[in-house]
C-alpha cells in the first residue's frame, strides 16, 4: 500500500514509500540496503536471442549511474524492467531489498510511485498546462490541493520554470518540455530517478543543461540512473558507468576514461 504525501510529511527527499501490500511490508532495514540489485537477469523478446543476458548490477543509494552502449544494446529494456513495463524472464531485481520481478499487476502502480521516470520523447500531455503536467504525480498520491500547489511551485523553480505553470505545455520548446517532464518525475521526491535517453531529442547545449539539472537533483540526494549513448555527456560528468553491449554488461566502472581506454583498442581492431 502506498503512502500518500500529506501536510505532515517531512520534506525528506530520501523518504521511502512501501509498494507492497501490508503483509509484505519491509523490516525497516531497507534504508541500509542498495537501492537496486539485479541478479542474473534475462529478458527475451525473441525466443532465441536474449535482449538482456545475465545482468548483475548493484546501485547504491545516492549514486549517479550512467548506462550506456550502442543503440539496441538493451539500455531502455534495462530501465523498463525496473519500472516494470515488462517482467523479467529469469533472475530477480531487488528494489530497496524487495523483489519487484514477481510483482502482481495490481502492485506495479505502487512501485512506480517510488520512481521518477524521464523519457526521450518527454511524455508530457501537450494540451495540459505546465502545472497540470507536474501536479499529476502528486494527484495520484492523493496529496491535498494546497500542498500540490506549493510543491509544484517549488519544483518548477528548481527546474528553471518558475512562474510558467499556466502555460500550455505544447507551446514550450523541447528543452522546456523535458524540464516539465523532469519536474513531474521529481515532484514526489522519488527514491530513484530513471532517465531513458532524456537528451536524445535535444541539441548539445540543451543536453548539457538537462544533465546539469540531473546532477543538481542528484546532489540533493536522489539516486539517478541515466541512460544515454551520447559520449559528450559521459565525458562531461565523472560518474559511474555501466556499459551494455548486445544485452550484456561489459563494464561497470567509474569514469568514462577507463571504459574508453579498454574499448578503444577493441574498436580499433574491429575497424
Amino acid at each position, binding site marked *: 500500500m*502506498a503512502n500518500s504525501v500529506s501536510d505532515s510529511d517531512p520534506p525528506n527527499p530520501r523518504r521511502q514509500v512501501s509498494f507492497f501490500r501490508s503483509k509484505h511490508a519491509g523490516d525497516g532495514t531497507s534504508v541500509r540496503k542498495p537501492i537496486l540489485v539485479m541478479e542474473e537477469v534475462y529478458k527475451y523478446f525473441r525466443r532465441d536471442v536474449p535482449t538482456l543476458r545475465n545482468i548483475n548490477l548493484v546501485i547504491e543509494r545516492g549514486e549517479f549511474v550512467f548506462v550506456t552502449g550502442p543503440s539496441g544494446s538493451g539500455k531502455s529494456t534495462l530501465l523498463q524492467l525496473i*519500472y516494470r513495463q515488462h517482467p523479467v524472464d529469469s533472475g530477480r531485481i531487488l528494489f530497496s531489498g524487495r523483489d519487484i520481478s514477481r510483482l502482481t499487476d*495490481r502492485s506495479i*502502480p*505502487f*512501485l*512506480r*510511485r517510488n*520512481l521518477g*521516470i524521464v523519457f526521450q520523447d518527454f*511524455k*508530457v*500531455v*501537450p*494540451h*495540459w498546462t505546465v502545472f*497540470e*503536467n507536474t501536479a*499529476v*504525480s502528486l*494527484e*495520484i*498520491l*492523493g496529496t*491535498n*490541493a494546497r500542498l500540490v500547489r506549493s510543491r509544484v511551485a517549488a519544483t518548477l523553480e528548481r527546474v528553471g520554470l518558475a512562474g510558467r505553470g499556466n502555460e500550455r505545455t505544447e507551446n514550450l520548446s523541447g528543452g522546456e518540455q523535458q524540464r516539465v517532464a523532469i519536474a*513531474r518525475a521529481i515532484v514526489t521526491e522519488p527514491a530513484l530517478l530513471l532517465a531513458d535517453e532524456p537528451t536524445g531529442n535535444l541539441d548539445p547545449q540543451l543536453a548539457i543543461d538537462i544533465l546539469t539539472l540531473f546532477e543538481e537533483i542528484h546532489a540533493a540526494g536522489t539516486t539517478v540512473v541515466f541512460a544515454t549513448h551520447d559520449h559528450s555527456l559521459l565525458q562531461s560528468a565523472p560518474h559511474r558507468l555501466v556499459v551494455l553491449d548486445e544485452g550484456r554488461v561489459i563494464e561497470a566502472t567509474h569514469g568514462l576514461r577507463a571504459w574508453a581506454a579498454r574499448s578503444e583498442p577493441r574498436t580499433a581492431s574491429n575497424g
Partner: protein
Amino acid sequence: MDIRFVFARAKRGFRDDLSLHVVAIASLVVAFLCLGTALLGVENLTRIADRWSHSQHLTLYLRDDARETEVAQLRLVLESLGEVRKVEHITSEAARKLFAEQTHMGNSMSDLPTEAFPASLEIELRPEAASDRVNKLTERLRRFSAVEDVENYRSFLGQFRGLLDTGRSAALLLSLLVMVCVVAVIGNTIRLAVASRRREIEVLKLCGATDSFVRSPFVLEGVIQAVSAASIAVVILLAGYLFAHQHIETTLSALTGVGMTFLSPWTIAVTLVAAGVVGALGSAWSLRRYLQV
C-alpha cells in the same frame, strides 16, 4: 482517491473533448425524449383506467319515444334502490349543450342530428356498491320498456386495460432500447475520448496511477453525459407538456373525466438515477480493454 481530483479530471476531459461530449449528449436527449414521452403516455392512461375502474357510474340511455311518465316512474324505482346515490335526467338538448360547452365545439355541432345525443338518466352509485350487484342492476334496468341501453363502462374498461397493457409493454421495450442506446452512445464516446487521451492515460500509468484512478474520471464523464441528457429531455418534455396542457386539457378531461398530469417526481428521479447507473456501466464497460499501457 480524492474525489475532487476525479471531478477535476472529468472537467478537464469535458474541456478537451467538448464537441464530442455535446454530440453524445444531443443523441442521448433524443433517446430519453422518446422514453419520457412513452412514460408520460402510460402514466396518464393508467390514471384514466384507475379513474374509470373506481367510478361507480351508470348511464341509462332512453328511447326517443319514451314518455315522461315512464321516465318519472323509472327515476322513482332507481332512487328507491340502496346502491343508488343520485339520479339525474339529461335531455337530448341538455346533452348536446353540455358536450358543446365541454369541448368548445360551438356552432360546428349544428350539423349533427338530434339522435346523436340521446336523453339519458345518469346514475351515480354508492362507492360501496359491489361489482356483481352493479352487473345485476344493469341487466334488470335493460328490461324496462323506456330503456334503449345501459352502459356500465365495464366492457369498455376491459378493452381499455388491454390497450394499456400493450402500451406498458411497448414502453418497457422502449426503455430497454433506450438503455441499450445509452450504453452504446456513451461506450463509443468514451472509447473515442480514451483514444484521444491515450497519452494522458500512458502518463498516468507511468506515474503510478491504478486502473481505478485512470478509469474513474471517464466513468464520471459517462454518468454526467447520461444524467445531463435525461435532465434536458425532462425539461423539453415539460415544456411540451405545458404547451399541450394549455391547448387540449379541457377537451381531454371532458372526454376522459381525468386531467392531464406530468411525470411524477418519483418517475423522474428513477429515470435520472437509472440514466446515471447505465452511463457509468456503459463507460466502465467500454474502458475494460483500453487501459493497457
